[in-house]
């Protein structure tokens, strides 16, 4: 009896309005969401007013939850992002690009004039700005890291939101190693493979080490990540310093010193709210 009553109440309650928005990136996180088994059932529990990938009519309503993917690379994107923030009760960043710039932010560290000449043979888009995560421009209520995001993490957050109308608390911090089944004798580091698991936020279930691929920091460094120690360790594996630095830069907006005169004693600072990495410019 009680259950029936609950069902009735649930059906009376208005479905939360959700929008999935995409800025500069590969849209792989949107696809990851679409590839969740039972996605249509999940989607039925909310009112998706904006999901340009599969919907033709995109009414720009007010949103209970805005899910934002992609990095911000132009003034136009900043304006659109701010508009979305104003209309949304909660806003979450999904994927490395939205969290801290991801792969698109790698362009920040290139000699701009050289790559433009090389790739486009002409001037830059006028309103182009430094590529960053969305948190540089607006308040973000939850960061879902990873490239791409984990299906389980998304489904858990989604279900929590549908049930409570609120976002879950931020996950506990810890290195990928905490979840890695190779931990111990089978550890990739013991095989002299440059695995970044020890300094990367957990939450993915360590899929890469399980496929014999060293972790590549796609979920962002932990706030206390000891980069110098990691660089020293990889150097002892025979890697060149420049290659290690390139590796560290792939998924985040962190600039490492470029010269080989780099002294490991200098600690690289990662500041910012929500433990989010920010670009460090010389």
């Amino acid at each position, binding site marked *: 009896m009680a259950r029936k009553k609950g069902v009735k109440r649930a059906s009376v309650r208005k479905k939360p309005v959700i929008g999935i928005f995409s800025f500069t990136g590969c849209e*792989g996180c949107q696809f990851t969401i679409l590839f969740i088994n039972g996605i249509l059932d999940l989607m039925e529990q909310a009112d998706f007013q904006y999901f340009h990938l599969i919907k*033709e009519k995109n009414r720009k309503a007010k949103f209970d939850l805005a899910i934002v993917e992609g990095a911000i690379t132009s003034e136009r994107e900043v304006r659109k992002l701010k508009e979305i923030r104003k209309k949304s009760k909660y806003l979450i960043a999904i994927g490395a690009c939205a969290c801290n710039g991801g792969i*698109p932010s790698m362009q920040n560290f290139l000699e701009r004039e050289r790559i433009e000449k090389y790739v486009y043979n002409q001037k830059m888009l006028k309103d*182009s700005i430094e590529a960053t995560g969305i948190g540089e421009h607006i308040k973000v209520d939850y960061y879902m890291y990873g490239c791409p995001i984990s299906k389980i993490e998304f489904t858990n957050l989604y279900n929590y939101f549908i049930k409570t109308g609120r976002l879950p608390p931020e996950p506990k911090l810890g290195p990928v190693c905490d979840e890695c089944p190779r931990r111990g004798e089978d550890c990739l580091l013991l095989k002299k493979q440059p695995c970044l698991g020890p300094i990367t936020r957990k939450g993915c279930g360590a899929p*890469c080490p*399980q496929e014999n691929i060293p972790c590549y920091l796609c979920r962002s460094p932990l706030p206390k990540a000891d980069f110098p120690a990691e660089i020293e360790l990889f150097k002892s594996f025979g890697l060149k310093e420049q290659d290690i630095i390139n*590796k560290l830069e792939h998924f985040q907006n962190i600039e490492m010193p470029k010269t080989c005169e780099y002294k490991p004693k200098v600690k690289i600072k990662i500041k910012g709210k929500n433990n989010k990495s920010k670009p460090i410019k010389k």
Partner: protein
Amino acid sequence: MGKTITLNHITKMEGHAKLNIRVEKGKVKKAELTIFEGSRYFEGILQCQKYNELAPIASRICGVCSVVHFLTATKAVEDAFNVKVSEQTQLLRELIHIGGHIQSHVLHLYFLALPDYVGYPNAIQMASKYKNEIQCALRIKRLGNRIVNVIGGRDVHPLTIVPGGMSRLPDQAELKSLSAELKKARKDFIDTVTLFAKIKYPRFEKCIDYYSLTNKHYNILNGKVIGMKCNEICTIPLEDYEKHMKEYFQEHSTAEFVVMEGRTYMVGALPRLNHNYKLVDKKILKMLPFTFPSDKPFHNIPAQAVEMLILADRAINILENIKIKKEKPKPIKVRAGSGVGVSEAPRGLLFHKYTFDKDGVCQYANITTPTSQNLRCIQEAIKEFLPNILDLPKEKIKLEVEQLIRAYDPCISCSTHFLELNWEEIK
């Protein structure tokens, strides 16, 4: 008085695009695609990266074609260092590639294209009336994901493809169960062909050059690049494909265009079948109400449906015969030089070219995606198609033009060069 129609934010297509059409006195003066996507400079950021870091970065060009970017980048690296991968690696890569094609085709067919033809704004609203079809699509999607998962370890941005081989070999038992699942799902693939063969597509013909891979069997991973140029077959040598292909920017437009041998051309499922239909089981081809070669761009949609069935059969064939033997990726001897990789992405030919220094650090990268190759063709097609439908109400024109664009299955986010610019062409 001129009439300007602007389709803002064309939806149900990966990436973000805008189209400007200008009609003057019943004549189409302008049909121009504008892209919303921010710039990512992939070719720039791939420079200075070590050879083994290229594929994971290149994979991030596109979330839905991540498998093919991964494979093609790896192929280019292997070509540069003259590494020949084992037969087993080739087969496993072909399998994961087939999985990627299925993922992409099923999404395009059922979620992006089908709603247009059955009169629904989107797949979610279509779901109640077309329950069986959507269920069938979801089963195929799950299977595509499963193949990519079993071989690559993840649905999007797979992990196991490394220069020289595979970082992890799949379990024989898992391959066996995959084979059984595929056989069970064969009916779904057949139903898909039947469904898309039944649809009445707009009658629009556009004679154009086609380019695709060809090989001894219907192969989307390896082969030589051939073109059909005025019914004349030509081969593009891979070592210097850049000499045959020209990338350029059009006046007042924002996107990159490509011509092959100075001519507009099309890549994708239709060109693949136009060139390779003789390699396909006749029973499959008979399911369609038309024959290949076809010059109708809308036939790209049923061509994708047929291709899914062909590829599913190929996957079953591989899975039934493969016996996984333990092997490690071939060792890489780094040397200075260039390498080219070419594959058939779901949307057509994909080229990756890299040049390395003696330490294996990338000095030059050139990526040519299928969408940028098709873009000129799409624009020309819109211009030719519009006069047929100009009398229709504006809403209908919008829908039909969108349908035409979507028939080419463009993926805007993967076009590495897209950029809005004010550029005056001096020529």
